């Protein structure tokens, strides 16, 4: 066989090949050293390279600099409310199109017919964590660590049979506090917690199941091909989504849009997580 697959190797790597082409390219890579080497190189850039790149923390005064420039803008706007001339320069037609699609969805929270108590249980777990944490002693976490790998290893050692993915939210200003092996609705759940700006708590749970078990919500968002189910309980926001056989849920008393945005950033489509073969 003399043909090589070039850009289609990248399509395979990025989960962008449909059958039957996917099987064809996969089979070819098994036998073609050159294509396999190319795929390995591309895969290293995709998965290995990012881990070698330094992340700089924002300078401590950057947030206040940004706020000061917003203050200045507010003051200018108050003086001349009509000046909004920057708007047309930014090419953001596609975001607006995506937004219109999202806006077409009714976004008032309502309970559906299905009697699942999962959101209420998850909200209760969050409240329990908050009150335990407020009394000191780490909020009932089995392991206190800011290292996602250590918390993942803890889950694996203590009976969580599915692979967990403890997020690094440092760039979002949420710091991992730790985790514990939990039980949610009679099933094992990997629970891990973060502290964010102004000491806001954020709790994530991963449990085997399906988002189809959730009650209906009218606040459903789509981002990157993933569906997010948003619930509110008092001032607590819950965002559920599916990753393979596991459901992930983020829970926090941070503003709803903040929690939704955190979920958008961290959710992955599972078929693109690990290259096969």
């Amino acid at each position, binding site marked *: 066989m003399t043909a090589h697959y070039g850009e289609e190797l990248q399509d395979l790597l990025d989960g962008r090949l449909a059958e039957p082409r996917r099987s064809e390219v996969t089979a070819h890579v098994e036998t073609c050293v*050159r294509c*396999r080497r190319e795929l390995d190189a591309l895969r290293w*850039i995709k998965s290995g390279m990012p881990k070698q*790149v330094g992340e700089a923390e924002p300078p401590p005064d*950057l947030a206040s600099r940004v706020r000061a420039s917003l203050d200045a803008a*507010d003051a200018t706007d108050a003086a001349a409310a009509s000046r909004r001339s920057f708007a047309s320069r930014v090419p953001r037609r596609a975001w607006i199109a*995506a937004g219109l699609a999202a806006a077409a969805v009714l976004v008032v929270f309502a309970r559906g017919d299905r009697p699942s108590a999962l959101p209420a249980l998850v909200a209760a777990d969050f409240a329990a964590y908050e009150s335990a944490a407020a009394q000191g002693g780490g909020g009932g976490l089995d392991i206190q660590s800011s290292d996602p790998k250590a918390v993942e290893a803890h889950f694996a050692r203590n009976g969580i049979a599915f692979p967990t993915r403890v997020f690094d939210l440092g*760039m979002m200003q949420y710091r991992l506090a730790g985790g514990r092996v939990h039980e949610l609705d009679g099933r094992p759940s990997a629970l891990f917690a973060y502290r964010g700006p102004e000491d806001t708590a954020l709790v994530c749970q991963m449990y085997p199941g399906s988002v189809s078990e959730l009650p209906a919500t009218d606040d459903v968002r789509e981002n*990157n091909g993933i569906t997010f189910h948003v619930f509110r309980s008092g*001032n607590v926001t819950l965002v559920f989504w599916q990753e393979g056989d596991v459901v992930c849920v983020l829970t926090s008393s941070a503003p709803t849009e903040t929690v939704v945005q955190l979920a958008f950033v961290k959710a992955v489509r599972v078929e693109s997580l690990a290259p096969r073969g």
Partner: protein
Amino acid sequence: MTPPPPHTPHRELDSESRRAEFEATALSFLGVVYGTARRLTRGSDDAEDLVQETYLRAYRTFDNFVRGTNCRGWLLTIMYSVFINHYHKTRRDPATASIDELEERFQAYLESGDDAGEAATTVEVHGVRLSPEVDQALSRLPEEFRAAVLFVDLDGLSYDEAAVVLACPVGTVRSRLYRGRKLLFAALQDHAVTLGFRKIER
């Protein structure tokens, strides 16, 4: 604090609520935006100014942001536009790597495989280790390829999202990413083994 129903346009909010909503939605991305600004500006002091300008423009155009859509993508779109129009053009590129030379090196890498012996090659990524070589090699890639790798592989944008940020068709993202990844690999090949790329032969 209960936010207003999501269909309320921001412009109908009073200025205080609008500001509070902007901060809740956009300011949590400060770290992400700063990280991308650092890489776009190749680690220079311009990063902070770029971040500030980005937030200012985002705030001024916040009425056009549709609540519930991807705020990170929206911020990066604004930032890349500011960067291309104001920062990139005013500065000379640092010595960019020779594309021809890198392409040749990549071909040589592809052809250096031992056809008979290599039954399986596996890429293993070891623990996190920061390597100045990677930052350096990235900063020497020509802008169009660098931006594609940066937004897709480092910022984790989908092709569709990157196409919006880069204001180009998805097919262009695909081909720039493909070339960018190959060029970057060629530039890093000497380091790649110590950086966690290795072959395990059966």
